[in-house]
């Protein structure tokens, strides 16, 4: 009987092992060279929809999402994925798209297949799933090109396709369009919108209020290493609660 219970317990853990949501951060703090960049952040990321992180430069947005994705250790506080500590095996369940895409020195297809191989997808399925992901990003025609001859916008679409290929529960974007022209931005926003409406959680850092308006379901405003407010985007855009956020939305320089 005790053995049966133990078995059940293991099964539950295994099933939970495939999941990362909700991602929780409790008391997250980060200090670098005596400067406190994050200052006691509590955050829950669950369900679906798009959460936009906004705030002035140096507010700690990029650092916060890296800590939540398990890429950086906080100085204090803890992160949990679906109730347990982050681990490398579940990393493919979190897609991370950086401001500057980092692509392997291989073909477009091979870049995507690589992510699938790391996620443990068998050789037989890899090509099919990589092709499907590239098709969603409308990169099929470039499949066999070296990844690094692509334009900036195509490179970013590829890094999204690569993150999507493993079927993540959540995609985190750190200013994905800040170096790109309007056409590329439109293509990327379309893809982000598609992913979101299929039920993948999206967390997006942006400085672009227009992008916030187009994509956000809710908004979290970061200032001086704290989350000052987190509200549905309609409410945020109508009237932010804090003076700092009001000034930011008006386009004033917030220090």
């Amino acid at each position: 009987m005790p053995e049966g219970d133990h078995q059940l317990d293991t099964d539950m853990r295994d099933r939970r092992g495939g999941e990362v949501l909700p991602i929780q951060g409790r008391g997250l703090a980060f200090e670098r060279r005596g400067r406190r960049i994050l200052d006691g952040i509590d955050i829950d990321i669950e369900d679906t929809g798009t959460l936009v992180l906004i705030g002035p430069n140096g507010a700690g947005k990029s650092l916060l999402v890296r800590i939540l994705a398990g890429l950086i250790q906080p100085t204090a506080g803890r992160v949990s994925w679906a109730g347990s500590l982050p681990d490398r095996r579940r990393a493919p369940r979190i897609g991370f798209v950086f401001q500057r895409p980092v692509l392997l020195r291989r073909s477009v297809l091979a870049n995507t297949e690589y992510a699938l191989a790391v996620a443990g997808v068998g050789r037989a399925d890899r090509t099919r799933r990589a092709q499907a992901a590239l098709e969603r990003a409308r990169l099929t025609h470039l499949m066999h090109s070296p990844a690094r001859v692509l334009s900036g916008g195509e490179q970013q679409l590829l890094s999204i396709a690569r993150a999507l290929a493993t079927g993540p529960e959540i995609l985190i974007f750190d200013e994905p369009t800040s170096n790109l022209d309007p056409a590329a931005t439109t293509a990327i926003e379309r893809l982000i919108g598609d992913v979101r409406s299929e039920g993948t959680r999206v967390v997006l850092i942006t400085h672009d209020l227009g992008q916030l308006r187009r994509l956000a379901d809710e908004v979290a405003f970061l200032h001086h290493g704290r989350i000052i407010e987190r509200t549905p985007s309609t409410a945020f855009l109508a009237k932010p609660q804090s003076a700092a956020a009001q000034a930011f939305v008006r386009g004033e320089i917030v220090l």
Partner: protein
Amino acid sequence: MQDFAAAIAEALRLIAGFDANLAEIVILSLKVSVSATILGAAIGLPLGALIAIASFPGRALAILLINAMMGLPPVVVGLIVYLMLSNAGPMGSFGLLYSPTAMVIAQTVIVTPIIAALARQTIEDLRSEYDEQLRALGVGPLRAVPTLLWDGRFSLLTACLAGFGRAAAEVGAVIIVGGNINHVTRVMTTAIALETSKGDLALALGLGLILLAIAIAINAAVLGLRATATRSAYA
């Protein structure tokens, strides 16, 4: 001056006629230097990758030493390998002195730090670029090594060519441990040294021309690699 012109004509005749003596020397040279380069790559590439990726006490010193050893004088390497292989030395019982094997050992000692140091630099640069992305994909350190080696393939191949170039051109080490024995350990560089001192300029010049051609071929290969790399937007 007439001697010189005659020597060149004779050298070209030797090359064009596939002179047996000359061919034997060239083939042994290539065998020794290619073997040393393969061994040097087998040791130097993993060693360079390890130093690039691992963090351990004394890492900075290891980098300093391996970079310094790139400029190891071949005569000193020859002397040390000679002492190791001579009858009184720790490896004397193998009886390797004055054999092509001894020359391969000496050239491997020269080539390994060159390949390791260049590989270390390549892989460290690549790693600083890839690190965050690879971790985001869930790549662990063990999987990162083959990824970095493959993505650094053009630069690493260039490092191996640099090692080969150095091995093929050196004379100090092979003359000490090989002894320049005719039909046994005589290679291009030692033959040139000997024939020049004997006054047989034709053979010396013929070998010199071939050695130059090899140097040019290596550099052409490096340029070709670089062009291929640029074409495929590797860099």
